[in-house]
């Protein structure tokens, strides 16, 4: 783990050096290799680290590096969004999750079983090889389509300077339906997450895995007594004193 961290740190330093050398911004390839290499290393760290908090930290570093790649792709607004959502929200959420489910140090060591890892590694490497071949074979459309797509390319170049405004307009006009739908999705997940995470009493007997014989809707008093613990003022079990 430490080695990984050192290597990725070394790559970062090298990348920094690279930036200092190439003041003219033409040869970005070196920078790209540094950032992308560090990103891949951080991804590996996420997957392999035994300590969950370390995993999450690698993930955070990975998110940052992806944000850097977004900046290299001239989508700076998205890079900001990436940092905002993934580091500001997702990573914090993950850390809370780890804190609430692990022992405090978060380093319950998982057993490394070769039986589990070997096939997975084979599948993963196989898929990667196929993807790499696919990338190499990717047909080049420059001949076929660039001429017809020229207006689109030009439009894209034009909006780059005005990204936040253009994106805002696009989201409210052209893509308003998926945008609104994402709003609904976020609402649903918020409501659902709250509903799930609320502390609850014993609606069903949880121990044996079978649902308790509840009662019919025709006999409401029976069930409500069971649930509300006899208090009529409140059906929230967490408010009921034991």
């Amino acid at each position: 783990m430490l080695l990984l961290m050192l290597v990725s740190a070394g790559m970062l330093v090298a990348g920094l050096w690279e930036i200092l050398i190439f003041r003219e911004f033409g040869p970005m390839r070196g920078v790209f290799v540094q950032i992308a290499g560090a990103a891949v290393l951080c991804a590996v760290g996420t997957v392999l680290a035994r300590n969950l908090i370390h995993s999450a930290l690698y993930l955070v570093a990975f998110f940052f590096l992806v944000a850097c790649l977004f900046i290299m792709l001239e989508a700076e607004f998205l890079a900001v969004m990436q940092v905002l959502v993934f580091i500001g929200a997702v990573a914090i959420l993950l850390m809370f999750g780890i804190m609430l489910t692990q022992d405090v140090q978060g380093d319950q060591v998982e057993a490394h079983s070769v039986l589990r890892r070997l096939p997975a590694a084979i599948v993963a490497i196989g898929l990667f090889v196929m993807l790499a071949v696919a990338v190499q074979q990717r047909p080049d459309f420059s001949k076929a389509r660039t001429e017809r797509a020229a207006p689109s390319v030009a439009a894209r170049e034009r909006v780059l300077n005005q990204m936040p405004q253009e994106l805002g307009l696009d989201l409210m006009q052209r893509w308003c339906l998926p945008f609104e739908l994402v709003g609904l999705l976020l609402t649903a997940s918020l409501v659902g997450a709250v509903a799930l995470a609320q502390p609850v009493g014993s609606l069903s007997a949880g121990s044996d895995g079978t649902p308790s014989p509840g009662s019919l809707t025709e006999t409401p008093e029976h069930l409500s007594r069971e649930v509300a613990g006899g208090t009529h003022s409140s059906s929230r079990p967490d408010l009921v004193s034991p």
Partner: protein
Amino acid sequence: MPTVPVIPSVWPSSSEWFFLSPVLLMAFWGVLVLMLDVLVLRNRTLLSTRAKWLGLTSLVGALAALGLAVGLLWPGVLATDVLSANEEFFNGTIAFDAASALLQVVGIGFLVLVIGLSMTWVFTNEQGEYYALLFWSAVGMILMIEAEEFMTLFVALETMTISIYILTGLETGSKRSSEAALKYLIYGSAASALFLFGLSWVYGLTGTTRLAAVGRALVESRTVEGIGGQWTSGLALLLVLAGFGFKVASVPFHQWTPDVYEGAPAPVTAWIASGSKFASFIAMIKVLMLALGTWSVDTGHLQSPGWVVILSILAAVSMTYGNLAALGQQNFKRMLAYSSIAHSGYLLVGVVAIGVSSQRTEATGAVLYYLCTYGLATLGTFAVAAWLAHDVGSDQIDDLNGLGFRRPVPAFCLAILLLSLIGVPPLAGFFGKMLMFMEALNAGGNGGIALTWLVVVALLNSVVSAFYYVRVLKALYLRQPGPAIGKSFPSGVIWTLVIAAVATVGFGLNPTALLDPLGGAGISLLTSPEPASSGRPVDSNGITQSATVPENPAQTQVPVAPAPSASAR
């Protein structure tokens, strides 16, 4: 170079929102139910009273949405000129045509029945959230059916799926429910990540996310560069199929199915098996036919076998695996889960038939028919599972022993549904299977792939499936009743059972009643609304002839790149 039509970027007009009214109603009704629970009922009333009121409110909302949806079907509302004026419905993100108008009625109908089922017993404390999420997942489902574009499709799919993850886990305090939900979430998220990666490749290859434009770009590129002959397309196709395969529970991606079906509360299971599957299959057909039609078969210079071959293999394996695994199950819901995998196999045969058949609209109609009748039958059987869960407190097949003597009406309905699932002649299930298999057989004559072997496998599988369904029938009528039998059936279960059974018999005796409108829906499902200048024939009045189905790209040799006419817009 002709000027390329650009879809206008505007806030949708009020008439477009009007066509979306059932969906909007459901979205807002979800909020309403939630507010009713949180602001009015919670902490003030008993849980059961709360559940009853919320269930009734939701039922009213769902029925209202159903009414709106049926109203949109009313002749004159969906007039041709209105539709053609709305070619770029919501800037081309969704389509509102005969298909979506009809299919959303079916989807909302499923929702009504599921809400009815949910009222049978109180399995969660979070009643308001439960019904709200049901509504919102239905919103995602219907937009998924209507989606004409990958982003909308993906977001709608996620809306539906994430809502269903939560619904699955809402049975508070139950070990099985939480376990099922977590497994569902993990498998589902991984599958949607695969799906998304495939979509990113499709987007990259074609430079667009609109289904029709993707299809056009792929057809064009076949003439120029040979997009289809690459590993690239093969992998993209595989990844997209992985996503859909998960949603419809076909074999290599089926692991979640038994656990989720068993662990989720029965109404939610019914919703997964009917609504989610329904929407996923329709979206799958749309994506495969409209966008990825070029990749359907091996055309000689193809290294990937094309989705027809992949799906045929998946279909055969799914059917066989599902049926064989179902043979050994003692748990009613688990058995139904495996049978659902098997039915995915049958439906995949239908999808393959759409891909190769020369009569694609008929094939589509057949698949839609099967989806509808299968959804109804599943709802009915899971209604019985719901009754078992709340009343007997278990869901073993043995608990059904002797139901036929004690409660003849529900037992008879269940028997009908099971027979339909087997595919016994006068019932709807039989016609669905027959139509799909016929289409698959027909394809052989058109130079497509001979699918005879697939149909033979399917028929053999139907025979195998009879064994485990008959075991339930045996329990119903040939065993002595157990102690638990004899309690009354809740009205929601009875209603669902009766509706499902009546529909099964009715559509079985008169299949054309359902088949004709669905065939019509199939036509518009396979024609995507797109800018009028890009290939769809326009008559002198400017009205698009939506009845013409584009030729199957697998059979036309080199499709002519559509000549865009600059005058159209």
